[in-house]
């Protein structure tokens, strides 16, 4: 059982990392959103598995939140926004895929190197969970750094949050507060982002963040 639980959790977590790589790689808007949905699904699966393993039913709630919000609502609304903004067919240029991939791999390695020795005390399941979670977080950050398009940045951010949830669920018996707070904050975050995108839509014809940067006040 122990090994099985471990293997399954391992599988899901690893899958999450893998999908993060796909996100990093994908340059079509629509494809990006679909992959993010997949990301969320896998996350919810792993959360559910953790809930099952840890016998902590409240985690199922988190899983549900993940599957409902992240896997369904957000992708759909993002699709809508894109259609509204007429950028759903855009192909975003991702500078040097190979380099990005390489960087991502280095990040994964780094996260393993950092976490594994640090968590010698904790049980293996939590260890690799956190390690993968860290790599997901870093990959999400990397995505935010490399993408120029607001939507893909948001997606990067949300994959980052997925990583956080993975870590949170990995940590054994972490009280409910956190999950709720995460979901809550993600919800707020999403709403706010939505508001912003609409406002931005009112002002600009693209959601390109560099457009935003052009109108900065101050400076010289």
């Amino acid at each position, binding site marked *: 059982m122990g090994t099985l639980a471990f293997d399954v959790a391992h599988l899901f977590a690893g899958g999450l990392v893998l999908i993060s790589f796909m996100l990093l790689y994908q340059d079509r808007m629509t494809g990006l959103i679909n992959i993010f949905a997949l990301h969320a699904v896998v996350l919810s699966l792993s959360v559910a598995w953790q809930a099952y393993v840890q016998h902590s039913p409240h985690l199922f709630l988190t899983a549900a939140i993940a599957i409902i919000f992240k896997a369904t609502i957000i992708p759909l609304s993002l699709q809508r926004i894109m259609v509204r903004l007429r950028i759903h067919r855009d192909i975003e240029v991702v500078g040097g895929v190979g380099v990005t991939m390489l960087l991502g791999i280095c990040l994964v390695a780094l996260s393993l190197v950092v976490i594994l*020795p*640090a968590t010698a*005390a*904790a049980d293996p399941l939590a260890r690799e969970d*956190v390690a993968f979670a860290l790599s997901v977080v870093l990959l999400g950050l990397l995505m935010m750094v490399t993408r120029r398009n607001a939507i893909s940045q948001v997606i990067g951010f949300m994959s980052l949050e997925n990583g956080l949830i993975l870590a949170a669920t990995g940590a054994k018996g*972490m009280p409910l*507060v956190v999950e709720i707070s995460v979901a809550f904050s993600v919800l*707020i975050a999403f709403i706010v982002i939505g508001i912003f995108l609409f406002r*931005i839509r009112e002002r600009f014809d693209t959601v390109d963040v560099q457009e935003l*940067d052009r109108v900065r006040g101050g400076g010289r």
Partner: protein
Amino acid sequence: MNGFAVQPVDALLIIPALSALILAFLSGYRLTSRINLISSGAVFLFAVALLFSRPAADNYLFVDDLNVVFVVLSTFIGFTTSAYSASYIGHEIEVGKLKPTHVRFYHAMYQSMMFAMNLALLANNIGLMWVAIEFATLTTVLMVGIYRTPEALEAAWKYFILGSVGIALALFGTILVYMSAEPVLGEGYDAMVWTSLMRHAAAFSPRLLNVAFVFLMLGYGTKVGLVPMHAWLPDAHAEGPTPISAVLSGLLLNVALYAVLRFKMLLAANAAAIAPGPLMIALGLASLIFAGFMLYRRDDIKRLFAYSSIEHMGIITFAFGMGGPLANFAGLLHMTMHSLTKSAIFFAVGHIAQVKGTQKIANIRGLTESHPVLGWGLVAGVMAIAGLPPFGVFMSEFLVVSSTFARQPLLAIPLAFGLLVAFGALLLRVIGLAFGEPSDSFGEVEASIVPLFLHLALVLLMGIWLEPHIAVWFQNVAGMLG
């Protein structure tokens, strides 16, 4: 004080929450602003009451010497700022920069931000604290964007993205802390509750704590506005309404700093973990010197003082990084003084920008001649923030620099250098602003100068005569910080 039906602690949370709800449904600027003022005042009173009656810590809230300092300070500034914003927003409505609906929104957000901050400060639970800080971020984001100008939106967007990333990193750190505590304290709340965490910190896995601290430092450091995570700060200060700039500098940064301090104490309590000092010192010096140089090229008056906030946050972080009774005392004192002074400066700046109809430094001249009260107020504020006696900032800078030089001369040199660079820039600007041929001004504003001079008077008083109780109290806290 125990005669109250509600514990002051609860009141600190309930009052803002309730008034936020009420304000969300009320319109009419006079009424709402007055309610805003009253509830902030009440909150401040309860915060003061906290000095006398302290509830026992539970799993969610607790009060100790450290966070009482922050609570009293932030509620006070929240109070004065609400008094100030009454006149400021009034003027904004007259000139039509804000619509009444916005004002309703504004006041509701103001109160909910106060709620979030008090929650963050009083939370006994690292998770709860995180939630509160996140919430505070969101509210301030909305207020920064309230003018809906492209610049405002861009500032808010930037603030939001960077802030949420920082928050996310902080959450990861929080989780790691839990993980390090969990083997010792077992699953459940104990592993997230400050009081128990502090008690058993020595037993936690040091390496995990190190990793956690990196995340927490960067995460909450983003909210503190430390270089290189500072980018949101100047724009957010510059584009939001001035009361919000005052609150950001006077409160939000402190709250984030409070979180950092808490975790620093946690690490300090664990002998095997790396000392958090060097990291804080490095970030502090970087912020100080970087901001000092950035001050020279600013042409927007609010950005100027935003950068000066970064500079001072750097000094404070440096002081806490140095540690030791003197430096910690200095850090606390400096934080208090900076909050008071900087918000006072923003009070002045807001009205100045209103009467001059611009925020461009180049177009503001000769204030001491055209508007003596505001002008001299600004000069006094800048002299105070630049650390000139008899104002209180001097005392803290005196302690920081001298004690640092006595212990680590090589660290004191860059510190002094940064102070001098920043001072040069501020002096250059304030001479340009306050002296010379006055530039033409647009209309008058019934400035509410009471908060401005109240703050300055406090800073002056504490610079000359630090009330013994306060001193003792700060010394205890400094002792706690180790």
